[in-house]
């Protein structure tokens, strides 16, 4: 074994595997940029006891659902040509930084949209990658040993929304469906966005019995960029035979976002019944 490898193995052996806590706090968790200011910022904070290397980049993606109603947000390096993407003309400063222990760093976002950009909403994803700088592999400094370990990297992906002009949003709620199996009510909520901007809101789903008593409920944040058909599973326990009603209410209430960031839209409501035999 080479001398350098022996030294490395000895160094690694002195590094406790669990002595890591690399990560970063990202705030806020969404950035809304207005065409008038063309800038925004996020704050990063390293709560750990070791420096964290942070890299900031942009990608493109938005929430979608598959045929089973499962949500995902696939983030690509660049956007398809037909998408209203801001990815290519957003910049972050600095893009790479080391944040010391319990220190904070502001990342400024500047937009340079092309001349003549039409009114509308333009989307991107900000990717904040953080990893610690220490060597993690632990093992015995034996000259013939094979020591193995893996470091961790975390990537926080947040939405960046660029708005120009007067925008509107809304939802068309198609007929929801509900099925009951294994003590759970599975509800599908097909939605299509209307207007000129993504619908950002909340879906509330309640399961009621024939007397109107609440049997189960769910509340979740929604971002509908085009269409979405999520499946919401609501544990209700064993249900007695009878008819039940599922009530779906969609609104632009979002306590996790600044009120000015959420475009208003009329609430939408629909219901569907199912029978347990």
């Amino acid at each position, binding site marked *: *074994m080479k001398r350098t*490898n022996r030294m*490395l*193995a000895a160094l*690694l052996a002195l590094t406790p*595997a*669990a002595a*890591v806590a*690399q*990560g*970063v*706090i*990202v*705030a*806020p*968790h*969404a950035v809304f940029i207005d065409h008038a200011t063309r800038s925004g910022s996020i704050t990063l*904070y390293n*709560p*750990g006891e070791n420096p964290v290397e942070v890299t900031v980049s942009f990608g493109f*993606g938005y*929430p979608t659902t598959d045929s089973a109603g*499962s*949500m*995902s*947000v696939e*983030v690509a390096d660049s956007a398809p040509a037909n998408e209203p993407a801001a990815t290519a003309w957003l910049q972050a400063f600095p893009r790479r930084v080391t944040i010391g222990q319990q220190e904070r760093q502001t990342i400024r976002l500047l937009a340079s949209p092309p001349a003549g950009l039409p009114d509308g909403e333009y989307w991107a994803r900000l990717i904040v990658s*953080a*990893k610690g700088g220490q*060597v*993690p*592999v632990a*093992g*015995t400094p*034996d*000259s*013939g*040993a*094979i*020591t*193995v*370990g*893996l*470091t*961790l990297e*975390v*990537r*926080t*992906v*947040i*939405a960046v929304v660029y708005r120009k002009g007067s925008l509107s949003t809304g939802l068309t709620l198609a007929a929801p469906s509900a099925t009951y199996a294994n003590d759970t009510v599975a509800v599908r909520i097909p939605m299509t966005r209307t207007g000129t901007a993504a619908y*950002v809101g909340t879906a509330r789903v309640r399961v009621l019995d024939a007397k109107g008593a609440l049997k189960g409920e769910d*509340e*979740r*944040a929604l*971002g509908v960029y085009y269409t979405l058909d999520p499946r919401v599973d609501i544990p209700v326990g064993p249900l007695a035979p009878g008819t039940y009603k599922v009530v779906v209410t969609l609104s632009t209430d979002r*306590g*996790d*976002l600044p*009120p000015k960031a959420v475009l208003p839209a009329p609430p939408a409501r629909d219901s569907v019944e199912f029978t347990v035999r």
Partner: protein
Amino acid sequence: MNTASKLSLAVLALTLVGASAAQAQSANITATATVLTPLTLTGTANLAFGNVFPGIAKTVAVTDATSGRFTIAGNPGSQVSMTFTLPANLTGPGSLAIGTWTGDHNNTNTTGGTLFTPSGAATLATLDAGTGNRFLFIGATVTPTVAQAAGAYSGTITLNVVYTGL
């Protein structure tokens, strides 16, 4: 009432108390603020296999003390999508195969939650409705060859997290 609203009210209440105390001396203004929950991802423990031997596969289970561990902290009750970028081989004096990835995510900092297979495909999880936390445990198997060169091998596990609600 959600956490942000509660915090806003708390800030407002404190402001009003302070304003009442100062009322005899000066004019007052009322300030309000909405405190928004940030998103925090932390790698809390590296995945450590320690020493392995040529020709003998070694597995670290999610329940082992040396499993890889992440913590997600964010808006309580929110759903997140998690994807992983995982190495097929570790680098060192040579190449060392790694695979058979296993995962467990839970609202408490213990295993016994939801088992999953870490991969590039999305795994959904809901942050704890009270604390906003979700804990992840990662295991895998390394398969050294009989002629595996001695030395230190390493790689990186990357966790990508995004809210599904925006």
